[in-house]
């Protein structure tokens, strides 16, 4: 009976996926902060001569990638905002069936996002970003990649739950 608080606790034994995710996400976030801070400072030195005109765009796009790479980890840890107050009042077997159905629903939804996300990444390949003239393909790619990783995390978690369930039954 709890909604997740906004503070996401790190597990004691992170999986390989989590460790790889962290190895990408942490440097990315620190780089974003460095660029943003440099951008604010540069506006005030040398009469703004070296002011960065691309920092806003880079920060936005870097965060889009960061969010889609972080989402699979949230899914794996069951840490996404969830309202499970009502289902928790149901009997355990029904809860399990619902959980499986919901996981399948997530796979269908994310499957749609992988397929159409890839399609839209290609549609947007000729579209160039305003500041750096970067093809938006590279930014849109975050959606199919993130969605695929979410499917992967969902399946891995379902397998883990089945295994844990079998262990409980064996005891």
């Amino acid at each position, binding site marked *: *009976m*709890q*909604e*997740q*608080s*906004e*503070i*996401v*606790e*790190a597990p004691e034994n992170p999986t390989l996926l989590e460790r790889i995710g*962290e190895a990408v*996400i*942490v440097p990315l*976030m*620190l780089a974003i*902060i460095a660029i*943003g*801070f440099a*951008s*604010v400072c540069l506006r*005030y030195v040398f009469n703004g001569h070296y002011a960065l005109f691309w920092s*806003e765009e880079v*920060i*936005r*796009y870097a*965060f*889009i990638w*960061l*969010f889609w790479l*972080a*989402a699979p*980890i*949230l*899914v794996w840890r069951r*840490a*996404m*905002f*969830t*309202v*499970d*107050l*009502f*289902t928790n009042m149901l009997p355990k077997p029904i809860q399990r069936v*619902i*959980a499986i159905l*919901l996981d399948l*629903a*997530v796979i*269908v*939804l994310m499957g*749609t*996002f992988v397929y*159409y*996300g890839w*399609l*839209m990444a290609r*549609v947007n390949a000729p579209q160039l970003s305003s500041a750096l003239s970067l093809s938006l393909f590279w*930014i*849109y790619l975050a*959606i199919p990649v993130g969605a695929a990783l979410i499917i992967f995390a969902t399946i891995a978690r379902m397998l883990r739950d089945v295994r844990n369930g079998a262990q409980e039954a064996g005891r």
Partner: protein
Amino acid sequence: MTLTLFGCFFLFLLLGLPVAFSTGLAALVVVLNYPIVQERLLITKTFGGMDSFTLMAIPFFVLAGEVMSRSGLTQRIVDLAIALVGHFRAGLAYVTVISNVMMAGVSGSASADCAATGSILIPAMKEQGYKPEFAALMVAFSAMMAPLIPPSIFLIIYGSMSGVSIGRLFLAGIIPGLLVGFSLLILAFILTRFTSFKVETVKFSGQRLKESAMKAGFALVMPFVIIGGIRFGIFTPTEAGIVAVVYALFYGFVIERSLNLKNLRELTMSAALSSANIMMIVGFSAVFGTILALGRFEQQITSVLFSITTEPLLVVTILIIVLTLIGGLMDEVSTAVLFVPTLAAIGVQMGFDPVQFGVVMVLAIMMGAVMPPVGTLLFIGVSIARIPLSRILVLVWVFLIPLLLVNLLIAFVPFFTTYLPSFM
């Protein structure tokens, strides 16, 4: 179409599907049933919903808040609050309010504040003989100041969804935030008249006040850096988030010397995950706006609303009550993302000051966080107090009264929200 959308959303939500996926899946059901909305639009809007520089202030302020808390700020603030009001009867109740006022100026997130101050103050209050349900609610409701007193994640979301200046919303939130705190002080004063606890009077000491103020001082400069920086045109609100992070790191590494690189890695990761949690909801539900527009939702709602009354103050009262009730069934982020564009348009139509209306709506949306059965802050409060949710279900209504009154006050009297922005 609109009905399908909301029906499916609530169904999936109550079945226990994560909020972000509930919005995405409800939109997919609409896509599959109404040719006017296509799968490709889901992608365009999900991308577009996240593609906003103003929203990027959220991860910055989340990280800044977490770094400050981990650096030991919460304890410093609590110590200072004890030195200030600890000597009164029911001092700890006041300490809770005062600590949260100060926390609100540093952090943008109510649930983070609730967890941070609650973990120190709820056990302390229980120790002194306060009823655990009172302690849990005192902390949960005090945390409500976080989204009003800048920085504020919800004012950022409101501004970016409605086009209202976040700089102005930040200034406008200060007085209402303090009013919430003041109303809670009065409530605590009244409620504790009839309660008995261990008399463990902390003697007031000027020396102690001075020392704790010195120790908390560096942290309490931060809100002034943020507000001052925006007010005097040194940076925009998103950039203020970046500056806040750098300031927080300076505080943790140089002043308190309580952080190491491992902490930095954990805090950065945690802030990334927390903000991804919010931004996934923002992204997936962005398509709701388009579906609602295609279904002419705004016209439908306004015609229903205006058939009841066209008196602006009555309309805003109805909106506050409806939002609070909706908030009892769903989380605040999706309430905000789903309804802000429509609400902002109604506010303009009714002739409200957009900044005032924004603050009123944000408080109404946030009331969902302390509204049973689904209230994020209630959950955090009771889990720290180690009591079942059912134990607060009576007392919570008493706490909701002053909050509702404050919201009506700022809705009816523009002064409280328009006075500070007029100095920009």
